[in-house]
């Protein structure tokens, strides 16, 4: 993948949607300093404001599911792999880290490494067996593996707590040499931890999808056979993306386990995989802010609709249908279109 720039250009010319790829290529170049600064301030500002305008546990959940949704978007938005098994990796990371934290280990790096490693490992096992299957077969296989993991968690009661979930999880401690130790028992400090990991994940994933690796994944999303014919090892790169998404989902799962100090069994259920796909679709797949907006709106709407009507899933279903039918690029795509209309309108008035 070192031949990136040249091959990226060839790719962009050879695939069916050259406009989008070339625009990604263009924005990959470092923009003006002020633009980058404003972007960063905007994101950090939003993350800082979030716990002030809603319960801190909901704000933390939005960041956690934002991480989870961004990882899923690496597969869906970039690689075009509609995985319906991401909850398996979220759950594996959560249970693995949760088990350590419930049994006397308190180190934050250890918990995160174990979550990341276990999520990635299970993703590698699932990916090896399913990545070469296309379309509906890939979806069904990932779904089936999700349920397999679910029933292992359900049955392995001595380790996972079975149906009752894994309880007794303690929040970890971060020991820094010469500085001291940081405890995350307070919800605000835990939110800070989630924010750091959220921002770090966003930076890593944005850089990753702008890299040659991301370009080849995007190319394979648009025309896999043509990308293979250009000499790229598409299945291998898709597998790597699958493992990275699994590892990041594992970290999100670990944060979720730490948030409520319990790992409930429904977090590993296939519905969790469907929800994260909804989050990506609602927010928009074409940039990394989309899944985060999708996660925020999805979590917020669940709470809001459940206060409005006891049969609220109907409202949520209608909302998802409306978004899918009318906003193919999700809410962020809609905002983008709206702003371009506004600019156009102003331009016309000035003429």
């Amino acid at each position: 993948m070192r031949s990136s720039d040249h091959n990226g250009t060839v790719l962009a010319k050879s695939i069916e949607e050259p406009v989008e790829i070339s625009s990604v290529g263009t924005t990959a170049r470092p923009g003006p300093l002020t633009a980058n600064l404003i972007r960063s301030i905007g994101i950090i500002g939003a993350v800082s404001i979030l716990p002030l305008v809603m319960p801190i546990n909901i704000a933390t959940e939005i960041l956690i599911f934002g991480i989870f949704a961004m990882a899923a978007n690496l597969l869906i938005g970039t690689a075009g792999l509609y995985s319906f098994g991401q909850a398996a990796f979220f759950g594996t990371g959560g249970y693995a880290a949760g088990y350590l934290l419930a049994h006397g280990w308190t180190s934050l790096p250890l918990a995160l490494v174990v979550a990341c490693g276990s999520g990635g490992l299970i993703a590698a096992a699932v990916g090896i067996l399913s990545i070469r299957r296309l379309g509906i077969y890939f979806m069904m296989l990932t779904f089936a593996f999700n349920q397999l993991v679910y029933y292992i968690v359900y049955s392995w009661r001595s380790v996972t707590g079975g149906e009752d979930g894994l309880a007794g999880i303690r929040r970890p401690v971060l020991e820094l040499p010469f500085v001291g130790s940081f405890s995350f028992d307070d919800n605000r400090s835990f939110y800070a931890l989630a924010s750091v990991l959220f921002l770090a994940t966003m930076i890593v994933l944005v850089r990753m999808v702008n890299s040659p690796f991301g370009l080849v994944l995007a190319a394979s999303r648009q025309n896999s056979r043509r990308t293979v014919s250009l000499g790229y090892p598409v299945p291998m790169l898709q597998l790597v993306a699958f493992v990275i998404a699994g590892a990041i989902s594992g970290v999100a799962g670990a944060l979720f386990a730490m948030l409520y100090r319990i790992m409930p069994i429904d977090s590993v259920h296939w519905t969790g995989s469907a929800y994260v796909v909804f989050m990506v679709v609602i927010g928009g797949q074409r940039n990394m802010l989309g899944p985060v907006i999708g996660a925020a709106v999805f979590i917020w709407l669940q709470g809001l609709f459940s206060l409005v009507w006891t049969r609220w899933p109907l409202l949520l279903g209608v909302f998802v249908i409306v978004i899918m039918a009318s906003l193919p690029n999700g809410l962020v795509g809609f905002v983008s279109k709206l702003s371009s209309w506004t600019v156009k309108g102003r331009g016309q008035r000035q003429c």
Partner: protein
Amino acid sequence: MPIAQTRRDVLLSAVALAAAPILPAWGQRAGVVTMGVITPTTGTFAYAGDLVARGASLALEMHGGSVLGNAVRLLTRDDEGKPASGVRRVQEAATSDGMRYFIGAYSSAVGLAESEVAQREKLLQFAAGGSEDFTGSRCGRYTFQWSAHPYTAMRATLEYVRKTFPQKKTIYTLTADYVFGHALLKYTKIVAAELGFELVGNDNHPSGERQYTQYLTKAVAARPDILLLNTAGADAVTAVRQFASFGAENIAVVGPWSLEVDQLAELAPEMRTGLVLGQNYYPDIDTPANREFVGTYTKKFSALPGYSSAYAYDAVRALLMAMEKANSTEVPDVIKTLEQMSWDGVLGRMSIDPKTHQLIRPYFVVRCKQASDMRHAADFADIVANGDKPQPPELNECKQMPAL
């Protein structure tokens, strides 16, 4: 793939991210006691959610809507029958709405997950459910259990069978393959040994099973005197329906915790005639508090109350009584009072075991009637016995209640 396409997108998206999920935060207002009914109104147990909410609001209404001069605000939140949603709703209600007391959670898994939040946030939880862990391995100072202990339920039911049908000695069990069913099977073995029954076989079935003939064929072939259903709800309804077509009339069907009043209507009279069922609550319980409850409930909702409504009514009523007795609405005061309190509830004389926070209460055994003996459409059974034998202390896993 950029974070967003333009600077404007970033700013607009950032504003949307920050502003969209604003929820109205009530905060804890002075002079208001906020109680939560965190219960499933969607999902598998959706039918129970409305019934729990009905019972809770009725208890509050009959108490005048206030306690010690403080208005009582009842919040209803949907836990979806999922532990993750349950903990989210409890935490959210505690943080934004100042909730300090809550009931609900028809599922034990949800209740146990919420119990973790209750201990940490110092919220009083009056739970219901079939899991013994509420008052066992996962007991907590802030959690109380309204439903009977599985041991009490099994003992009361099988004791009745032993006395009424002394010739019936062998039991075949059909067990739901999840925590609730396993707990009942565990206590079937213990109580069967205490009362001299012989267990001749068991089959586990998955939750939501629709085909029971393979289990029932094995059960009939084993020629037991009793088919014991360690399963509940829709599973138990289906199993009883299918067993009725076997014509094995010499095998008595006993359900220690299987069918509540709400579900008995789903069985044809000839299918339920003769069933022996253990009950956490039955509308015919003859106590002053229950007569008052059933009268008011029937008048208001034109239906007889079942387990879900009775639990919510009685739990909220007990909490309000404890606040008045403690002359305080502070959670630690109410907990200490409840631990020492003895009161006349809908089930009879009730109290709390301070070592486990299990409600000490009777458990009822009913026998279903023939259609010709029913006085009205919901007159399914007669109460034939009750028992309140608590779980033997040596079997309890609650080590020590922590300090408040």
